[in-house]
């Protein structure tokens, strides 16, 4: 077991180093003069150019620059945004709660509907109900979510006027950010209507971001359940005369969920990629929209820092999923992976 953990960490270190190199290389791979890009000044004199070159540290050898960057990471220094001049790390963590809140809601939404749809489809295997559920799941899986978001806006915001079009909360509410989660903060503020405003802003983005994970989870749950339902211990439980609900809910589902957990863990990357599109459509002030804006504004330190931090998050979540998997799956636990 310990060996498995060590091995898993051992793999992580070179990957982390590689990610730092990749994000470091990013800004240097950009076509054109990095000084001109970073300074954003036109018609530089050679003297000013040299001065800026020195200021940004581009005159030093590459390995020295990398070392600086690498050590900076451990001191929480990812450079400053070219646009706001604020540290990239601060920018990232001011916006991150918005993405986290949206992603958590989306994954909860996806799990709630995905797992139940998968279980029902597996139990009713081969019926029209199963087929239509899985057909719907495949449509969800094939969905261009940026278009899906626009459709929902047309229907619920444009035609029915049920939900707002963009943002996290109506502008009339103002309260201090305690947790960064609008749902919690709006409750804490005690202002009337703030919570429902936050909730109504959250619904459409949650559906849009959760659609693909929902479809993936439903499909995975169904096939895992089908496999488990054919096992001997399920037959035994049935033969003992346990009520079907108990056999499915307790005996089968618990074991079927092991591969599903891995699938859910793998959805984190999907969620973060989806957040780029979802946040852009709904003007959701999170890191996805911030990354897109940074790319368009050519705010390269932000892009570089954002890439590194997002990759770190994905790596950490994957690690946690692997460790959890090791905990719940005795095969890995005993053989040492």
């Amino acid at each position: 077991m310990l060996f498995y953990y060590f091995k898993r960490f051992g793999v992580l270190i070179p990957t982390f180093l590689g990610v730092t190199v990749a994000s470091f290389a990013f800004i240097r791979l950009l076509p054109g003069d990095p000084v001109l890009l970073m300074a954003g000044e036109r018609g530089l004199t050679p003297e000013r150019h040299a001065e800026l070159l020195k200021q940004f540290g581009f005159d030093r050898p590459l390995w020295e620059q990398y070392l600086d960057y690498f050590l900076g990471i451990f001191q929480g220094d990812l450079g400053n945004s070219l646009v706001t001049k604020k540290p990239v790390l601060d920018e990232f963590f001011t916006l991150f709660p918005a993405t986290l809140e949206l992603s958590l809601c989306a994954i909860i939404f996806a799990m709630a509907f995905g797992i139940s749809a998968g279980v029902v489809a597996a139990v009713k295997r081969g019926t029209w109900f199963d087929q239509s559920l899985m057909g719907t799941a495949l449509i969800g899986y094939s969905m261009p979510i940026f278009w899906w978001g626009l459709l929902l806006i047309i229907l619920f915001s444009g035609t029915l006027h049920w939900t707002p079009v963009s943002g996290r909360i109506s502008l009339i509410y103002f309260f201090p950010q305690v947790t960064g989660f609008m749902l919690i903060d709006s409750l804490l503020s005690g202002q009337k209507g703030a919570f429902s405003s936050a909730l109504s802003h959250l619904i459409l983005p949650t559906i849009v971001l959760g659609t693909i994970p929902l479809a993936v989870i439903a499909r995975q749950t169904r096939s895992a359940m089908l496999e488990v339902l054919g096992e001997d211990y399920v037959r035994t439980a049935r033969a003992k005369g346990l009520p079907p609900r108990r056999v499915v809910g307790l005996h089968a589902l618990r074991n079927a969920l092991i591969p599903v957990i891995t699938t859910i863990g793998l959805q984190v990357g999907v969620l973060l990629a989806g957040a780029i599109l979802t946040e852009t459509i709904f003007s959701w002030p999170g890191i996805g929209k911030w990354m897109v804006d940074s790319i368009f504004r050519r705010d390269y330190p932000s892009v570089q820092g954002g890439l590194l931090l997002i990759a770190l998050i994905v790596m950490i979540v994957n690690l946690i999923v692997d460790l959890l998997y090791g905990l719940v799956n005795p095969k890995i636990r005993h053989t040492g992976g």
Partner: protein
Amino acid sequence: MTDTVAAAPEIDTRKTGRLALLSEFWAYFSENRGAVIGLWFFAFICLIAIFAGLIAPYSATEQFRDALLVPPVWQEGGSWNFVLGTDPVGRDMLSRLIYGSRYSLFVGIIVVSLALVVGITVGLFAGFMGGMIDAIIMRIMDIILSFPSLLLALALVAILGPSLINAMIAIAIVQQPHYVRLTRAAVLTERSKDYVTAARVAGVRPIRLMFHTILPNCLAPLIVQAALSFSTAILDAAALGFLGMGAQPPTPEWGTMLAEAREFILRAWWVVTLPGIAILLTVLAINLMGDGLRDALDPKLRRS
């Protein structure tokens, strides 16, 4: 499956073997009704793409200044001149959608071929060499996989410059680690089998051993993955187009069309809805086919 092989022992196994394999594959594939529908629809889109010049009523970029935002024919104000209506600058939606199919299929084909060729070569190499080279290659793949695919593609396009070609290159780079991993895993299980050892002992050179002896036996998961990444490539290219980082206007790429139409969503539903439906149906058809391929090629699932 084992029955047929056992029942026909020493009669010209080679030719009938292949034909039998193919017909067996088709038998499994056609069992899945969705897969067959997907295949027909995909063939239909391919035909549209090939004969776009003949089918489309107008060119994709021709502007009718007196017919801006004309609704589709079944809606009030629509006309038979523009069956699916026109966009904000008076271009015929139907023609643009028809020409757009070319871009989506093109993206899918190029991305999958690029990712497949590079991924298989690197994966074979890693699995076959083992040791240090394998470890380094796999760590590089881990690094690529640590970035959410769309974000990495977006950043790569920022480096390369926004265009459809660069978007395809970026998406191919993002996708090839999956092929590397699959190929390597398959090679590792095949490498120690007797037929490989036999070939090696018989003096088969490494390159031939890799591509001719081992590779054909690793193809099933790769084909399934290729179908899967064909649809992902179309979605990602459309997403990049939507974000303004893929094909550039006035290219009638479906994602780019959506991006151009965004500000009109509350006034003219058709400019937003139709390109999305085109993307959805194409991707859905490919995914249906992919499911059928998986069922037909994966013996593990076949038994269940």
